[in-house]
């Protein structure tokens, strides 16, 4: 347990310090959201309708961008081999790493959401809904993305290949995240149904992600 706590603390500290790149994700998120009004035009009514979708897409891309570093940096300096050989089960270590990554890179995105909501002309309730769905949904993005990160590090290929592998897996999260936020803003649907499916997706990926990532690390590293 202490080993896992130490691992989480270490990962968060690395991610937040110089060269960690967790906060670059927030900057990227901001940039993507700011780009959107240039693409669709500064029509406030349209922006407030598209707001949840824009915020979700931005968060998805930002979390994908930072996932690259999840195992790669540890692989480069050799600490990934130590983690693989340590007495702590690799599945738990993977889960701890993903949790640390989410705390360092996912939570800042959610904190930034209200500010970006202002830019997109979202009202209080809509912003809260988007932030809540992001809070429930981004763990799923991190934990499924971890599978892609583990595959990428074993293959010594990152970037584009990882995006191609991870993005299809994240489509359900995107669908239900946006559906739940839209339900609050316009929809006839209730907020509860898509939101509970979103939570279920997060829980399922919480179980599957660490096992799949650990399997691919175990089979892939040599």
């Amino acid at each position: 347990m202490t080993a896992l706590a130490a691992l989480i603390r270490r990962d968060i500290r690395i991610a937040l310090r110089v060269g960690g790149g967790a906060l670059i994700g927030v900057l990227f998120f901001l940039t993507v959201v700011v780009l959107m009004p240039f693409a669709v035009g500064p029509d406030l009514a349209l922006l407030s309708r598209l707001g949840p979708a824009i915020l979700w897409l931005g968060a998805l891309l930002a979390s994908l961008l930072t996932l690259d570093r999840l195992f790669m940096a540890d692989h480069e300096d050799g600490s990934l081999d130590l983690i693989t050989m340590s007495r702590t089960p690799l599945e738990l270590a993977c889960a701890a790493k993903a949790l640390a990554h989410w705390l360092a890179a996912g939570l800042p995105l959610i904190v930034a959401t209200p500010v970006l909501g202002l830019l997109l002309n979202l009202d209080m309730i809509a912003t809260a809904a988007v932030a809540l769905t992001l809070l429930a949904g981004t763990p799923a993005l991190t934990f499924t993305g971890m599978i892609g990160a583990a595959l990428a590090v074993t293959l010594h290929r990152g970037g584009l290949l990882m995006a191609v592998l991870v993005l299809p897996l994240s489509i359900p999260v995107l669908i239900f995240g946006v559906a739940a936020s839209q339900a609050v803003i316009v929809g006839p649907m209730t907020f509860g149904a898509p939101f509970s499916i979103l939570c279920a997706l997060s829980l399922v990926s919480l179980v599957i992600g660490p096992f799949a990532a650990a399997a691919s690390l175990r089979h892939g590293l040599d």
Partner: protein
Amino acid sequence: MTLIDLANPTRFLALTARVLPWLAAATIILLTIGLYQAALAPDDYQQGATVKIMFIHVPNAWLSMFVWGVMSIASLGTLVWRHPLADVAAKAAAPIGAAFTFLALLTGSLWGRPMWGTYWEWDARLTSVLILFLMYLGLMALWRAVDDPSRAARAAAVLTLVGAINLPIIKFSVDWWNTLHQPASVIRMGGSALDKSFLIPLLVMAVAFTLLFVTLHLAAMRNEILRRRVRSLQMMQASRMAFSSDMAAGSREDNASKEAGAA
């Protein structure tokens, strides 16, 4: 003859060489019968002649999921039993499955245009099949991104098993979300909802397409085995050439051989 006996690629090649012509013949015969029956099947009272797209669309859609199932079993073979032909089977199946999935999407949208009034609809079944198609493409990209086949095999196996979660979602999407795509009508509780004049050609076509997949898959596996043999022969030849030039250079001048070795 068990699965373990097939682990020897030479034995596998010999067996498939004998089986393949028969499989191909059976596929052609069944496809001919199925297409003939489908052409003779009556027009639907609502859909007219467009109902005949179903005879192509449904087998393709079935196979798009069946192939991923085959790949999942092969991936288990790679990860659990280390069966030497499992990764060959998984690799050979991916492009075929992608083709079936693409055809299912294509025929579906051709049918959807006159019936639903749109080529594409963001319906649960359509979306989940599109995800399946994207995952086939991602898997093929993964196979192509790595030059060492055994390394790529294990990574692809993990991804295939993760992607298998999508299969039940596709199957039950029409029951869970009440959307535009019609619910299951062939295999369901309380017997098929299809009339016999449609059901029999459809089943013949389904069997024919499955045989088509088996034929193409075995042929692709043979090609993959031969491709790997050619590759290892080329690598052996290259290393032999490097070695002999090394020796020749070494007999002439010692320093040159060191340089060649470093290069």
